């Protein structure tokens, strides 16, 4: 027998999934929303996407190469996912240097300083977004709509729906066409442009069994329930559940950010509690906070509870009560 025969402990076969294939699935799932964003926002959006992804990948490569002196991990595509998510979480008007700072925060601070993929406590893209939001409030809330490849008559520059609600209350958002919001919602972060495009991507992730639906469903459920209670109590002051489900970054956050493997709980029940926490915090910030939108803050806060939830909730074991 040749000396090349392999010997290892069992099992001897492996499922055809890898970190790279999972990340590739996430990229594919984000494509519909990305394409819609590019079509309606044009070259500016391509620039944000390009700067974000390229700088995330380059930074990770440079940090592994020169600081950590380890084999590069860019091949697993997780930096691409972070870059893509960061770009989709920024307004299309974000200057390129702000995007670059965001990439440094996401990869350099939120991800690599903890030891790279799998080790970080906070979702890198959200950490970067929140960092930029508090550091560059003017640039981050500039909702000017540039000319896209497809011209839309709905293109109105100005505050987002949530922004208008925060400013002027229920009256300011009266008459919003929800069906329109579901398909195309110009203004806001680039990724929020089409709820339906995001949901198509999420269904793809579910079909490919990349993520489980529990976290996302519990966020949607909690947002719907909380806003329903408040809205029923005082419809003149509080916005309605459908408005809250369709606007802002809720769908992007619930489907793609909150379900990040690394920063979400391992168990199904832990995930449900985590989702309830995010949903509740989102509504509290939207109704009572000084920021119009709270998905990013809610996810970051709940990220902190993940180790605790992992300690509390475990898998159901065979033959044990």
């Amino acid at each position, binding site marked *: 027998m040749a000396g090349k025969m392999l010997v290892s402990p*069992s099992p001897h*076969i492996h499922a055809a999934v890898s970190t790279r294939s999972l990340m590739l699935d996430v990229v594919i799932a984000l494509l519909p929303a990305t394409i819609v964003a590019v079509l309606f926002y044009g070259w500016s959006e391509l620039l944000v996407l390009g700067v974000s992804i390229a700088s995330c990948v380059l930074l990770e490569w440079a940090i592994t190469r020169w600081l950590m002196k380890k084999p590069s991990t860019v091949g697993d595509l997780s930096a691409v996912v972070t870059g893509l998510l960061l770009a989709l979480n920024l307004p299309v008007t974000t200057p390129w240097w702000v995007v670059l700072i965001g990439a440094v925060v996401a990869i350099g601070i939120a991800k690599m300083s903890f030891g790279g993929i799998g080790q970080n406590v906070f979702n890198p893209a959200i950490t970067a977004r929140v960092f930029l939001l508090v550091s560059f409030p003017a640039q981050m809330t500039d909702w000017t709509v540039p000319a896209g490849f497809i011209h839309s008559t709905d293109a109105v520059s100005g505050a987002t729906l949530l922004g208008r609600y925060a400013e002027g209350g229920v009256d300011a958002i009266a008459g919003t066409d929800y069906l329109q919001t579901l398909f195309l919602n110009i203004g806001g972060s680039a990724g929020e442009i089409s709820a339906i495009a995001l949901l198509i991507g999420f269904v793809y992730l579910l079909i490919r069994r990349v993520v489980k639906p529990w976290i996302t469903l519990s966020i949607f459920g909690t947002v719907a329930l909380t806003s329903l209670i408040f809205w029923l109590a005082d419809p003149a002051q509080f916005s309605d559940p459908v408005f809250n489900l369709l606007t802002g970054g809720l769908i992007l956050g619930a489907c793609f950010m909150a379900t990040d493997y690394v920063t979400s709980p391992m168990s199904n029940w832990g995930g449900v509690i985590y989702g309830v926490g995010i949903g509740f915090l989102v509504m509290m910030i939207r109704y009572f906070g000084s920021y119009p939108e709270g998905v990013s803050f809610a996810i970051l806060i709940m990220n902190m509870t993940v180790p605790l939830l992992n300690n509390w909730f475990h898998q159901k*074991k065979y033959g044990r009560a």
Partner: protein
Amino acid sequence: MRKLTFSIGGVHPDDAKLSKDCTIEALPLPQTVYVSVAQHLGAPAVPTVAVGDKVKVGQVIAEPGGFISAFVHSPVSGTVKSIAPRADLAGKPVAHIEIAVEGDEWAEGIDLSDTLVTEIPTDKAATLEKIKQCGIVGLGGATFPTHVKLNPAPGSKAECLIINGAECEPYLTSDYRIMLERTKEIIVGAAIMQQVLGGCRCVIGIEENKPEAIKAMREALAQLPYDNIKVQPLKKRYPQGGEKQLIDAVMKRQVGSGGLPISVGAVVQNAATSLAVYEAVQKNKPLITNVLTVTGDCLPVEKQHNYLFRIGVPLSFIAEYAGGVPEGAAKIISGGPMMGRAISNMEATTVKGSSSILYLSEAATKRGPESNCIRCGRCADACPMGLEPFLLRRLTLAGDLEGLEANAMQDCIECGCCLYSCPAGIPLLDLLRQSKNQVLGAIRARAAAAKAAAEAAKKE
């Protein structure tokens, strides 16, 4: 009928039953066989022959070395050449009895005819003794002595005998072939065990990817006079044939941690064991043959075989007879790809529980580079015991034995689902197997200390 399955975890590897249409062929005899004395779980057998002795096929050559042990019989007729340590599958030295083959003369009293004997002896003690004398061990993998399993401790009662025809390991087809070719014998064997256990119900569990076997079993059952035996189709899902999983699937009961199947009224026996029991009780034939699959993803279909082999035949002899080690083989495995052992020594010989020689290509088996855990939780979703391998690995690396025990490390059945499903290529089971043994050792040491303390207290 509704297909049943177990309730926690599991994976769906490609079943790759490439050799399923190869009928069982008898393997010729080599010039020399080497019979291991450690072919079963428990104490090794003690040789009862001396160098120079003439032996016949089926004659006892080693007797049990303890309560949990088994008889070993000569698979050939000839002369004992030596009794010496020889490297086993893993290259570790084990005592083997070397016999030079001379003709093929069987010991007296063994019925070699094909006639089916359907009448079941009523003397339970005699049947059990016969099973013991014929050296029958479980052929599903663990090779636990069958007579011990069929004789539950006083106070426990068998409610259901499960015949395991799941064969959930990919590639393997030996159980499938005997279920097709020796259908009635397996059923008679099951009926014998059913009778020994006091007439409990009997379920033959077969995975849905073997519809021909399910059909054959049902037809044979209709022709035979036994009642309270039924065929139960199971979903294709690994590890459906795991003892604990099969009990969960068929009986909807779960065996407690550290407990035996009999504690929930279950006795599980493999289909091949059932055939061996039939041959022992009805034909007086000891366990010296079994069926083995020669298969693999890099082996052309015409070179795949299911062989009826005698124990003690060197694997290299079988490989040569089947056409040699294929070009693209990167790993040779004895057993299935999920739980089998990689062979480092082709001079090792077949034992009672040998089930395959499996050639896997590098593409199918080579491990990828290990990267960071991405906390996707796939290992925990896959674990059929509901353990959390990612957590157990962390505890292992931290050396936290108490934490490991609290998180049920000792319940691991080493099925390999965690390592199979890990996208980051982390060698989970490699590490956890060690931890499991450590935790089991600690539990045993504690039990022994408690027992000693109790005895000391009694004396005072």
